[in-house]
């Protein structure tokens, strides 16, 4: 009973907040007057003036992309440098040393690409300065970058034979100042009230009741956790992420953190509907996402409550926290994987095979089911273009979306966006399982070992960041390979989507006629879900059969490894 109440509360809150926040975001990115204009308007104008940005000056898609890539490159350099020099810099009370070059490389790419894959544990590896000024900053900026790409794409879709897509610096600034920062402030303060730590003091010592020394790790955690959830980043302040009682102390903090990780991405579907002048289109996309999420959640819950004949246990709590129980661990594991967030409140490595499969499969779908802030929806639009194209082939008519012709260029770009991460996942997993360096880090034997490696590359390519964390990845082999995956998974999608934005902007909008294929009804919703599942399913089915599916069958037979 309690399970159903918690599920209802979670989805109820998500559905109710979607139009509220969606409307607000529309006003922000449209440059209209809104709630926070009087509060932060001065800050926005000050930033433009100081940075020499003319907010009226528009960019074409190449200029927009160019600005974005440079900006992300600078971000990478800063994060890399701060890790390599943290031992000599202030705000390092725990005296952690500089990181290795390959960990710095991996972490820098990871946070710039909104992946937040972590080959390290924050409390023993990163100084407060690195956490705040490098990792915390990229939590904001990588989310804002994703949002900016989406804004440009939306503008491209509604422009009638124009080249201009707005100004990257303006979209970035507004995203941070009006959306990410205010929401983070609210969330952070509420999280502290629940017990999330927020201090610059160094770690303290306690003596346990049995007289043993226990170090209490501290730090400015709440401020970072708020944005790591809201910005679909997912990189924990502490190594065990939101399972750590200092990151997620109570069931209420857990509820808020789960909500936060889907909140903005869900709201953006509504914003999208408003932007293109049809709320129904927005709700159709929201519906497709919600259906895929709920089916996966159902399968995972069933699998987790079922008996495990191999371990002789029913409803295993391995890797889970008592205060959350199974249901909250599983709402989280499915939400964090559809949402490209990647934070965890239970260890995915210890999930039952089918729940682990759903987590992996959610990422393999391309992180388009809600997905990352901005990136989820622009990825989804790639699938929409493919669906419209396939529907066009079936009825033998030139495919159109929002009154614009979809031609071979757009289809090719959408295919690159969808397939580049997929190719990377499979190729790199193949390399890892056939080399000594790849197999060296395994924590589990049997088919679960394959799942650990497959999950790692899936997570990196999907810019998710969650892990089957038993796999030891802080090695040059994994750090470098996973870095490549994260770059492909991010920019292998951003670049083609920006190209689509540019080419769509230049097209003429033809009015709706009787021959128009509608993209806002149940028929389209089913087609869209089918295309997403078929692309995800067919591409990865063989690999999944050898990993989690085989493990499930062997577990049913009571086998262990």
């Amino acid at each position, binding site marked *: 009973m309690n399970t159903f109440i918690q599920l209802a509360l979670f989805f109820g809150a998500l559905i109710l907040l979607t139009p509220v926040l969606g409307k607000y975001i529309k006003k922000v990115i449209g440059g209209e007057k809104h709630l926070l204009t009087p509060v932060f308007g001065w800050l926005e104008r000050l930033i433009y003036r100081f940075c020499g940005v003319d907010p009226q000056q528009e960019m074409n898609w190449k200029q927009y992309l160019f600005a974005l890539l440079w*900006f992300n490159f600078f971000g990478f350099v800063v994060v890399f440098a701060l890790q390599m020099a943290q031992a000599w810099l202030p705000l390092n009370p725990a005296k952690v040393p500089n990181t290795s070059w390959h960990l710095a490389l991996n972490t820098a790419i990871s946070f710039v690409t909104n992946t937040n894959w972590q080959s390290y544990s924050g409390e023993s590896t990163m100084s407060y300065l690195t956490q*705040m000024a490098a990792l915390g*900053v990229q939590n904001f900026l990588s989310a804002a970058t994703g949002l900016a790409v989406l804004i440009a794409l939306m503008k491209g879709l509604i422009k009638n034979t124009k080249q201009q897509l707005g100004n990257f610096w303006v979209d970035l600034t507004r995203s941070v100042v009006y959306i990410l920062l205010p929401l983070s402030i609210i969330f952070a*303060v509420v999280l502290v009230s629940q*017990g999330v730590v927020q201090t610059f003091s160094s770690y303290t010592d306690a*003596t346990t*009741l049995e007289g043993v020394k226990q170090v209490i790790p501290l730090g400015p955690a709440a401020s970072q956790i708020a944005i790591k959830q809201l910005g679909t980043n997912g990189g924990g302040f502490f190594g065990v992420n939101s399972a750590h*009682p200092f990151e997620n102390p109570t069931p209420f903090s857990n509820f808020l953190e789960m909500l936060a990780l889907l909140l903005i991405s869900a709201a953006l579907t509504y914003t999208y509907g408003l932007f293109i002048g049809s709320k129904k289109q927005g709700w159709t996309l929201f519906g497709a996402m919600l259906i895929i999420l709920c089916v996966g959640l159902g399968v995972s819950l069933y699998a987790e409550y079922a008996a495990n004949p191999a371990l002789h246990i029913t409803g295993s709590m391995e890797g889970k926290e008592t205060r959350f129980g199974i249901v909250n*661990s599983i709402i989280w594991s499915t939400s964090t994987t559809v949402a490209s967030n990647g934070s965890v409140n239970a260890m995915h490595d210890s999930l039952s095979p089918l729940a682990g499969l759903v987590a992996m499969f959610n990422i393999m779908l391309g992180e388009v089911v809600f997905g990352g802030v901005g990136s989820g929806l622009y990825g989804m639009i790639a699938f929409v273009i493919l669906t419209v194209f396939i529907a066009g082939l079936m009825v033998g008519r030139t495919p159109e979306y929002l009154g614009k012709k979809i031609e071979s260029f757009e289809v090719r770009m959408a295919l690159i966006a969808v397939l580049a991460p997929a190719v990377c996942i499979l190729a790199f997993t193949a390399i890892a399982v056939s080399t000594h360096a790849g197999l060296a880090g395994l924590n589990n034997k049997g088919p679960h070992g394959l799942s650990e490696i497959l999950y790692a590359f899936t997570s990196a390519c999907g810019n998710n960041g969650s892990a089957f964390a038993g796999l030891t990845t802080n090695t040059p082999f994994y750090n470098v390979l996973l870095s490549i995956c994260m770059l492909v998974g991010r920019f292998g999608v951003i670049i083609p989507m920006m190209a689509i934005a540019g080419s769509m902007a230049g097209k003429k909008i033809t009015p709706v006629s009787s021959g128009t294929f509608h993209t806002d009804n149940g028929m389209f919703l089913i087609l869209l879900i089918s295309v997403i599942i078929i692309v995800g399913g067919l591409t990865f089915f063989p690999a999944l059969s050898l990993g989690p599916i085989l493990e499930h069958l062997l577990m049913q037979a009571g086998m262990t*490894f």
Partner: protein
Amino acid sequence: MKKSILSGLKILLVFTLLTGMVYPLMITGIAQAVFPRQSNGSIISIGQKSCGSELLGQEFKSERYFWSRPSACSYATLPSGASNWGPTSDTLRKTIEKRRASFIIANHLPLNTVVSNEMVTASGSGLDPHISPESATLQIERVTSARHFSPSQAQQLRKLVASHTEQPQFGCLGERRVNVLELNRDLDLLR
């Protein structure tokens, strides 16, 4: 183009200051002013001495205390961690069997006792401060005899466990649970 690169550098600088310095400092200021206890780790003290955090689990080995869940890192905090053993791990199967058997023996329980799941598995954080009320109840007998409690003290202990049983937050969120450190602290005060 050059102008664009320069703008990028400046924007990065501005946002590093804003989101990397001003924002965490502001939250720290608010947190320390409004929630000083929570923001500093919800420390539990006995007299002047800190004996841990209400939120972080501790390892209890003595017969005289209630025991926490198994932990893959033995409640170490730098860093803490989970076992990450999978659902078909032979090591995990053996470990669960061993924990179940030793819990039953140590608590002088009938061999067919159902030990609740969290007591035979390790948590995700390695620092889970809670156990289920069922697991606390199963340990009452052992604690009573280790402390040579009289029947009336044993009765008080039962009441103590009941009063330390937290219900789901707001009546619906999360699970019923007992904070082991808080229970043990109050156990020491029992006369």
